[in-house]
């Protein structure tokens, strides 16, 4: 892997490089890596603590998370949440509006029925039919759901957690750092980081150099479940139907929360995602077809 010259020689691209350390923990349903200059190794624990805090608040699986509170709350009641959860929900609603419903955090029912999420303490997902239109943000700590619904922040919370951990590393004075929450990553500092992009089939064909930005990718070719005769992926489109794609989308943005959420929109509509990102980011162009695919088409 280290044979590709410039990416790893650490001289031509990165003239002065401090030693880095990386630690990895299972969080947010995936593997989270925190990399920081060895001089600031102690900050890694604090960065993980930020991710653990987001995990506790926004986990679908844990009954005492804010999402657990929301699904147990009677319709119409005011639910008190952590300001971080309200912030992420507010951003999710904005993206839902601007994407014409493509980005939707109220698809928990479909994800439970397709087996991507557990039923948890709810006995029957079928009665949770509320939509984004039923969510009212009262203030920075209170939310009202007009109808029962299963909210899943799987398309945005990993990005938010990554931003929070990066914020911690920066406040701790680290000169450079990288947080990678299962492919949603953000990096900062005077360093160009090589990032391998893993395609829908699990292969890595493309490597980019990134500096001071966030980057997220989505694919679902290997994440499928068969329910009866239907094939499902964890990505649900605006029509409530699964988005099935062989490809991969990668979004670069100034925040990981935005990059994470935008991949879900770009999976369906790259042009819309690029428009919504505007000056805040970009959608990487798709890879040209592989020679094998071209031959198959010919």
């Amino acid at each position: 892997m280290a044979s590709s010259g410039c990416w790893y020689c650490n001289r031509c691209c990165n003239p002065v490089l401090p030693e880095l350390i990386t630690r990895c923990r299972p969080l947010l349903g995936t593997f989270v890596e925190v990399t920081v200059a060895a001089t600031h190794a102690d900050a890694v624990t604090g960065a993980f603590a930020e991710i653990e805090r987001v995990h506790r608040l926004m986990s679908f699986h844990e009954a005492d998370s804010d999402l657990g509170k929301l699904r147990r709350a009677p319709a119409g009641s005011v639910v008190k949440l952590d300001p971080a959860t309200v912030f992420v929900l507010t951003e999710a609603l904005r993206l839902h509006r601007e994407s014409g419903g493509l980005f939707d955090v109220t698809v928990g029912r479909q994800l439970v029925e397709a087996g991507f999420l557990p039923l948890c303490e709810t006995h029957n997902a079928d009665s949770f039919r509320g939509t984004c239109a039923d969510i009212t943000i009262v203030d920075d700590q209170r939310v009202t759901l007009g109808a029962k619904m299963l909210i899943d922040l799987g398309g945005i919370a990993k990005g938010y957690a990554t931003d929070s951990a990066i914020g911690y590393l920066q406040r701790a004075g680290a000169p450079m750092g990288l947080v990678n929450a299962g492919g949603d990553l953000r990096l900062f500092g005077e360093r160009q980081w090589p990032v391998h992009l893993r395609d829908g089939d699990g292969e890595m064909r493309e490597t980019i150099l990134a500096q001071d930005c966030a980057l997220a990718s989505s694919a679902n070719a290997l994440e499928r479940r068969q329910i009866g005769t239907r094939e499902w992926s964890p990505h649900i489109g605006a029509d409530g139907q699964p988005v099935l794609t062989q490809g991969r989308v990668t979004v670069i943005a100034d925040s990981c929360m935005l990059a994470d959420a935008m991949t879900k929109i770009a999976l369906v509509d790259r042009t819309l995602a690029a428009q919504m990102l505007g000056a805040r980011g970009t959608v990487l162009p798709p890879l040209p077809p592989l020679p094998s695919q071209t031959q198959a088409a010919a």
Partner: protein
Amino acid sequence: MSRTIWYQLASAPAVALVASPAAATDYLTLEQAQRVLIPQAASFRPVAVALSDAQRKRIGKLAGTPQRTAQPKIWQALDGKRTLGWVFVDEVIGKHEFITYAVAISPDGQVLGVEIMSYRESKGGQIRNPRWRAQFKGKSSQDRLRLGKDIANISGATLSCRNVTDGVKRLLVLQSVLQSSAA
């Protein structure tokens, strides 16, 4: 960040690697994992345990995943004579990945922390081949902490950590079974 940087990023020459890299990373040596998980400990004493077939079956039944090894790797974290907890080092084998991880459990059976020590991925069928895995045995405990240049940053579809979380549940059961048999 200025827009210029994105353009540079978007137009950065994409490198088509000759062989697709398989992710393989060493994060922590045994000593580092122990120190990170229970920093207050003055020493870590290895605990020799040999599980009976009946105990292994019971752990597998209670945890929902099989307890494969009869000799789990356990260290007692000590501050003088006081036990601060235990560190378990375990392996999980997924379809495509082989992961060594460490879990710290407090004397009252709470998870104090989980750290991944090493992660290996392969696209072939080697994961379940003991000879393939044996080449990494002992590697983590002897290697120096790897430098960042050795870590491959990868962005793609999210990988599930389900195998590891199931493993942690199993180690909690293992600890309670050992405690009840010691009592």
